[in-house]
């Protein structure tokens, strides 16, 4: 390769810079607006400079009460993350063998990705509504007091909500596992087996360390896809809102820059999260390289 850049480089570089502006411009604008003083409004010009709206957000006494939704989303995302990694790895291992229904499962997984989210959401909501009706009928027929007075709905963040999120994260997890095992050299496992390792030992000491960085990839994917999921959540969370749902509800109802402060804060949070994850991955990779 030579050092002289072709002209196309500069053109493309220019386009890249424009794209960056396109990506970051709006974010910078809300960042600026979120640092307004108490009399700031929703539109430019920026009035004053203070952290007033952040304080208000932090104190939780303004128009944006997101505490419960934030906690709920966080826990849900963690659960989704763990399940996504576990289920995807298991399925990934399964797909290294031939088994009946393998193709069907793959196509179902891919369809789950491409069926419009609103349809999946509607379907799960309907399914759970039918389940609710069945439970209530049962309660009435058998006169079960608990159902009649306390049963609200089977819909909830950790039942239907969790399921809806998994239909979104698992296909990604599975596809990443395909990518991993497509490039995976089975010689290491064979070596371990030849040395007398049990399948479990082989997995624990050979396979798992080798695919670990990708698992972190799946985990990050699982967490963030769930954290930011909205379309699939829309109909299935029952009476509890997740953070994006709460945000969507608030976009139109909040009349002061607190909503921008919230936007800036969540953006900062995500950036921190990515930095953290990348550090983790590069640490693991460095260690692995040293080991190999």
């Amino acid at each position, binding site marked *: 390769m030579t050092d002289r850049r072709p002209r196309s480089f500069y053109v493309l570089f220019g386009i890249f810079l424009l794209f960056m502006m396109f990506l970051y411009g709006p974010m910078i604008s809300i960042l600026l607006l979120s640092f307004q003083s108490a009399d700031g*409004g*929703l*539109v430019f010009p920026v009035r004053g400079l203070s952290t007033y709206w952040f304080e208000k957000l932090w104190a939780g006494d303004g128009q944006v009460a997101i505490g419960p939704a934030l906690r709920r989303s966080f826990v849900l995302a963690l659960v989704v993350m763990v399940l996504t990694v576990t289920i995807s790895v298991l399925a990934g291992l399964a797909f290294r063998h031939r088994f009946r229904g393998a193709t069907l499962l793959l196509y179902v997984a891919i369809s789950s990705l491409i069926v419009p989210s609103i349809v999946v959401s509607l379907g799960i909501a309907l399914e759970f509504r039918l389940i*609710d009706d069945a439970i209530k009928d049962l309660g009435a027929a058998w006169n079960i007091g608990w159902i*009649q007075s306390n049963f*609200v709905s089977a819909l909830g963040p950790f039942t239907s909500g969790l399921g809806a999120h998994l239909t979104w994260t698992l296909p990604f997890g599975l596809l990443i596992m395909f990518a991993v095992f497509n490039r995976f050299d089975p010689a290491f496992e064979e070596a371990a087996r030849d040395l007398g390792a049990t399948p479990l030992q082989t997995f624990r000491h050979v396979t798992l360390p080798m695919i670990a960085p990708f698992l972190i990839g799946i985990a990050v994917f699982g967490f963030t896809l769930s954290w930011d999921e909205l379309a699939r959540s829309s109909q299935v969370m029952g*009476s509890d809102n997740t953070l994006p749902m709460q945000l969507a509800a608030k976009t*139109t*109802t909040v*009349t002061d820059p607190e909503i921008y402060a919230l936007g800036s804060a969540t953006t900062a949070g995500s950036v921190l999260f990515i930095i953290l994850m990348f550090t983790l991955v590069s640490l693991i990779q460095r260690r692995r390289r040293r080991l190999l």
Partner: protein
Amino acid sequence: MTDKTLKTGTSRRSVLKGAAALAGTAAFPAPFVHAQERVTLRYLSTAVNQSPAIAEKASEDLGIDIEYISVNTDEVPRRVITQPNSFDLVDSEYFSLPNLVPSGNMVGMDANRIDRIDELATVIAKGTVNGEKVGSDGTAPHEVLYLEDKDSTTFATEPTEWITLIPTTYNADTLGLRPDLIDKEITSWASLLDPDFSGKTAILNIPSIGIMDAAMAIEARGDITYGDKGNMTREEIDFTIEKLIEAKRAGQFRAFWSNFQESVNLMASGEVVIQSMWSPAVTAVRTQGIECVYQPLDEGYRAWASGFGLPRTIDGRKEDAAYEFINWFLSGWAGAHLSRQGYYPAVLETAKEYMEPYEWAYWYEGKEAEQDILAPDGRTLEEAGAVRDGGSYEERMGAVACWNAVMDENQYMVRKWNEFIAA
């Protein structure tokens, strides 16, 4: 009080009430009640109706904790229908009742347990102001106020002992506008469809309310005279929606909104200069220092009312607490609090007791403010000398033309409305 039926009902009820009170005292001596654990009532309604101050005050006065569940206007009936035991008390609009009552998820409230049942504002209880009938197109509260009996799923035509909703707030809506951005005089609902405001009007995306706004505007423009605009025939619905779609395709609307704050944002940011508005929304725009007028119109107002209802599943101490809270709500403090936000409360006399005479004169009598009018949070709403838009209580509520409505053809209307939104 000239209504004979109600008068006889009254006396009988008062006797029963006394008896019930006696029985109540005997069963639960007061100290025993207080020794029990505090009751929490889950209070389902739109965010607009949920004032933290009221919850605080109720907790102080009654020892009852209020947990607000705030949802959008169209989500309230959905919750009542699909999750009737997720709340203990619902503050719902009267127009939802034709959908809620047949579902069997609500229960009739015992009139004998409501202390001030006879003092409810006549506009809600009888559809009259100062003895004069007001417009009753649409779902007028007095038509859906009573049930045949506690568990009935049909409305009673005559007053009974069983109440669907005890009113919390009500008011009359009209067009709100930005006088700084409009240079003509607005006197009619037809202005909503005035091509001069093309791209600068908005309409509510809540079918039961939006259709009434549209009907007021289309009728005012002279396109049609409805038989009963609150209970349209299919042909009338088709015609109305057709006119709306025409306007939409011509670019008349800037946006559709479905909650209170959204309308405030649209107005305050100047995206919209004229739209149907809720009276407190006009107040909210003004507190941002932006001129906004609540404009009385020739055709009259579109009124709304909302009230407390109980879910079928409520019983025991929660039920007692709910009645206790409702009685407290009608006893004046809450009414005065809501009045200062521009709402009207169920019982006027008690609210008056908790308001300064100058406040009462401004909010209810249409008089000039003798001194600055303050919002409940202490901000100045109006300087001394200001007069409330729309005048006195009688002028506003007396000029009601129609109410938010659920029609017989509601299912069809909602479907057509969706077509309008989609068109």
